[in-house]
Structures are given as structure tokens and as C-alpha cells.
């Protein structure tokens, strides 16, 4: 944490060839639209009680603009996997690339935005100053910063609260500020670790709809950690179901939602290409939560989680 990263060589070395790198990145993004590529990743934590295998043999590809949820019981390593992608931890074995770069380089280049379960706003900064923090750190001009912050707060519906302090906001509003902040650098990838986990159900559904709209507007890929099945189903293009000790991917369930997709369930079963278009995602409205296809997908994810068809229990109820 305390390493002086600004002084790190990659930054300086990359500076002269920035146009080339940027061009290459754009080319890569259009040619091979891969946001995250995780290959044979293991993560072992050394603890006093011995080794803990947090992740084992993880392979996962997230396409650009795709919304992928990681779901599983506590201790399945879903948060750990997200932290590896964010370069907050390093894998023990295997490789991770983010837009073709190492996670460390992607972090230095601000390729991703991140939001945690706690909003993590700085209490001494106003809402606007909190959103401006990443821009400030990366030396954006004051006028640009102001315009950008205004636009972001507009997007999360908090334009009237720019001058408030975090302690004057509700939990849901704080979390929206945190999401605005994660979008400040216009990242092509959003990493979210149970961002709505601490919110009440009603706020949560509202926030989910907002996130669907925002991710459609920005076209960013999202890796979303959650332990709520309906949340994962409502938001995602694909749901990655994980199992604990050691953390493994049990199944990847593609989502087909909406009236059009719903009628085609079964027919389109063979199609493996996930729907990644912003238009498809924007079509996810609250009405979807009562759609037949929604419940079918909830069931599919639940069965994947439990490893066997579930015959009893009300459908669409969260198992947390």
C-alpha cells in the first residue's frame, strides 16, 4: 500500500509512447473485445492455521461491455477474485489480463472503477469533492473536473446534493455517490463488490434499475459480486456460480431475459454468445422482475448453486 506508485517506472516509461499505447488499446478493444481474461488462477492465503485455498483453477473471460455476476456462498472466493482483477491482491498461480494488460498496469492506467459494499466516502469532503477525488488525483483541470462531476451526479440523480456531506445522506445515496465516483475516469470496466449488500430491499431494487441504466449508458463491462440470486439474474448477462473451499467456478449460467428472450428460452439454448448490447440491457425494466423468464433464470441459478434441481421452496425468494 505504502509503495510510492507515482514514482514507479511504468508510469514514466509509458508517457512518451502514450499515443501508440492508446491506439493499440483501442485496436485491441475493437479487434478482441475482452475486458478481463482470467486463466488458471489459484490463490492461496498463508495463515497461522496453515494454507487456505481461496481460489483454485479459475478460468473466466469477460467481454467488453458485458455484465457478469459472481455469486456463491460466503468463502467461495468471489470477492477475492474481484480483488485479484483490481490488483489489490496478487494470484498465487495463473494469469490475469485486463484489456490485454497486467492488472497492475490496468490499475495504473485507471482502466477500471471500483465500488465496495461500504460507500467509503471521505467524510470531510462534500459529495461533489468525493466524486472529484480520482480526477483531482490524476491532475484533471479544475473546470473539466467541475463539468464532469456535474454530469456524473446528474447521472446518479444527486445533482441537488453536490454540496452536502456524506453524513447528511442516506445509505443508498452514499452508495450512489460511490458509484458516480467509480465512473469518474470513464472506465471501460466496473468492479463492484456487493455494492447494494447493506441497503434495504426497496432501495436495492431502485439501485439495480439505476445500475442497469448507467451501465447501458456508459457501455462499461461490469464484474459484480453478490450473494443475491434475483439481483444477479436481474442485472447480468452471465452469472458465474461459485462453490467454496476451495473456491471454484461451478457453472456459468447465461441469462436470457425480457419478453423476446423469454419466449425463445430453450430455442436459443444452444447459442452461447451472451447478449452484450447496451440496448438489450436497457430493456431490463422493473416489469422484468415479474416475468416468467426471470423466475426461470432464478431457478437455473439456484439449481447451479445447490448442485441439484430444487423441488421445494417458493420461487424468486432470495436464499442468502
Amino acid at each position: 500500500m505504502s509503495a510510492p506508485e507515482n514514482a514507479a517506472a511504468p508510469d514514466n516509461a509509458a508517457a512518451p509512447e502514450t499515443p501508440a499505447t492508446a491506439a493499440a488499446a483501442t485496436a485491441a478493444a475493437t479487434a478482441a473485445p475482452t475486458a478481463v481474461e482470467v486463466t488458471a488462477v489459484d490463490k492461496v492465503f498463508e495463515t497461522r492455521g496453515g494454507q487456505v485455498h481461496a481460489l483454485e483453477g479459475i478460468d473466466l473471460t469477460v467481454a467488453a461491455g458485458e455484465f457478469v455476476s459472481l455469486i456463491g456462498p460466503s468463502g467461495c472466493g468471489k470477492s477475492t477474485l474481484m480483488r485479484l482483477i483490481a490488483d489489490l491482491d496478487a494470484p498465487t498461480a495463473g494469469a490475469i489480463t485486463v484489456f490485454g494488460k497486467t492488472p497492475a498496469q490496468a490499475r495504473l492506467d485507471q482502466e477500471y472503477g471500483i465500488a465496495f459494499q461500504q460507500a467509503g466516502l471521505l467524510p470531510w469532503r462534500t459529495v461533489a469533492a468525493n466524486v472529484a477525488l480520482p480526477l483531482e488525483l490524476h491532475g484533471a483541470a479544475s473546470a473539466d473536473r467541475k463539468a464532469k462531476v456535474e454530469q456524473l451526479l446528474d447521472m446518479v440523480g444527486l445533482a441537488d446534493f453536490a454540496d452536502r456531506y456524506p453524513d447528511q445522506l442516506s445509505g443508498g445515496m452514499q452508495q450512489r455517490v460511490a458509484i458516480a465516483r467509480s465512473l469518474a475516469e470513464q472506465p471501460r470496466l466496473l468492479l463492484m463488490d456487493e455494492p447494494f449488500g447493506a441497503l434495504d430491499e426497496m432501495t436495492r431494487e431502485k439501485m439495480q434499475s439505476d445500475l442497469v441504466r448507467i451501465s447501458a449508458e456508459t457501455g462499461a463491462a461490469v464484474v459484480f459480486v453478490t450473494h443475491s440470486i434475483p439481483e444477479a439474474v436481474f442485472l447480468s448477462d452471465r452469472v458465474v456460480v461459485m462453490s467454496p473451499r476451495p473456491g471454484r467456478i461451478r457453472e456459468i449460467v447465461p441469462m436470457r431475459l425480457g419478453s423476446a428472450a423469454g419466449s425463445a428460452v430453450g430455442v436459443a439454448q444452444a447459442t452461447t454468445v451472451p447478449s452484450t448490447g447496451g440496448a438489450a440491457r436497457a430493456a431490463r425494466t422493473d416489469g422484468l422482475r415479474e416475468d416468467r423468464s426471470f423466475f426461470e433464470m432464478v431457478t437455473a441459478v439456484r439449481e447451479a448453486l445447490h448442485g441439484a434441481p430444487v423441488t421445494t421452496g417458493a420461487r424468486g425468494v432470495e436464499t442468502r
Partner: protein
Amino acid sequence: MIGDRVATDEGGRVSRSTGPGLDTGTSRPPRPTKAAGAARRRLAAVGWGVFGIVLLVVLWEGYKLLAPADGVLIGETRVLPRTTDLAMPHVWDMIGRLGEPVTRSPSAQALWLVVLLAALTTLGIAAAGWLVGVVVGVGLALVMQRWRLAEWGLLPWIVLSQTVPLIAFAPIVKSWGSRVEIGSFEWQDWMSVALIASYLAFFPIAIGALKGLQSPDRIHEELMQTYAAGYWATLAKLRFPAAVPYLLPALRLGAANAVIGAVVAEVSTGLQGGIGRLLIQFAGQASGDPAKAWGPIFGAIVLGLVAAGSVALLGAILKNYRRTEEAA
């Protein structure tokens, strides 16, 4: 004691004043009543302050009136002081004495003026010592926060440093200082006093600053990491702002310590012109002029209040950095 009283006063006022601050911009109509409420609270604060002083005077004079002249003794041991005019002058005598000249010489200044000048001299020395203490204390905290090893190696020594009795090394510092001469710079006696004051001041500041710099939540540290913010950027945007609620009480303790250090060091190094010297000098004359000895004591109290009050002012300026403190 003095510092503590100011601390609670100031702390109470600041936390109470958050009420109107919270609603800035939203609830316009109830504004006047809130302002009136604030004014009433301020009046109440002043009222309680006056009440405290009056209570003290009543206790002093009441004891003097009711207790036996020889004080209260248990066996041979005196547990409460004598009440003679020599031991406990009347309050009005002590205040009245402040207006009279120091000596009978026709050119003598009034006692209050002499005390005030001496207090200002000591305040200046204590302020210099406090500033050195801030620089050294924050510097040590930065080193200890940056390197775990430095914390393990330094912290015990910092704690140990405060167990050395002040009067033991005050003369040593003075004699070392008198040998320092770099070019045209010559070590002054007041610098020895300031150095000793800083020795007392740096300790709470180092401890408080370390605690404050280490206080940011893990989530905030990781957030800064994801922003690829380096050490200095993290320090400026996260660690120092987060340290403010820890630093302010530390700075206040440091200010009180600097005043005590300066007064004691003046006495033990024999520096002229400060309130410490005046305390000793007038105490020696107390048998003939008991009220006079209280002049410098009042001066020292005011000195402590001013020192602690200045830091409280700093806290009022930095109030936005203390939001967590107030919410808690």
C-alpha cells in the same frame, strides 16, 4: 487542569453548533428559531462560565470565613490550609493588588502590566517550543507510520524520553546551549527554555499524529491504491485529513505542555523576564505582600487559557475535518 476546562467548553460548543450547520440550504423557514436557539446556547455557555468563577470565589471566601485560622488538622497533619490573610488573601485584595505598582519606587509599573509582559514573554517562548514540538512530533509520526520497523524502534524511546525529570536536564541543556556558536549565530538562553518546552510538547503530538495517520479505514487506503495514488498523494488527500480529529487534542495537549515546560524551565535555568521567574521572585516576597504572589499565578492561568484557546480556534477552522468526531 486549565487546558481541560477549555477543552470541554470548546468541544461542547462545537458539537452543539452542528445543529444549524446540518440544515444549510434545505430548511429555510425554521432558520430564525435555530439562530435564536444558537444565541441562547451561547448565552448559557457564558452564564455557566461566570457561574463557575463565582462558585470558586464563594468557596474561597466561604472557607476563609468559616474554617479555623490554623486550617484543619488531623493529628499533626494539616489537610486543609490556614485561612490567615498571609496564606489566603481575600479575592478583592488579590485583584486590587494587580492595579497597584510592583514596588514603592515612584517609577514602578503596575503589577498587572508587569505580569502581562512576563506572560507574553513566556507565551512567545512556549509558542516557539510548541512549533518545534509540532515539527518534530509530526516528523516522527510520519517516519513511524511509513516504516513499521521505525515504529517498533522509536516508540519505546519516545515514551521513555518523558520519564526523564525536566528539572534534571534543564541546567544541562542550558550549559550545552551556551557552548553553541555557529558563525554569527549565538545560542540565547531563551532558546534553551524553548527547547525544553518543545521536549514536553512533542510527545503528545507524536503519539496523536501517529494514531491519526494510521486511522484511515482499509477501504479508503485500498481506494487510493486503485486510483494509483502514490505515498505523497495519499498523505495529502487521505492521511492528514483523517488525522485532524486525532491531531487537534494532541496539539492542545502539546500547547499546555509547552507552557508548563517553559515556566518550569525558566525557573530551573534562571531565565529573567518570564512568568516563571516572576512566580519565584514574588513568592519570596509573600510574607510581606501576600496578595502580590498571586499576580503571576493569575498570569500563568491566563497564559494556559490563551495557549489552549488558540488551538481551539484552529479546531474551529478545521471543523469540516471533524465530521466523524461529531457524528460519533
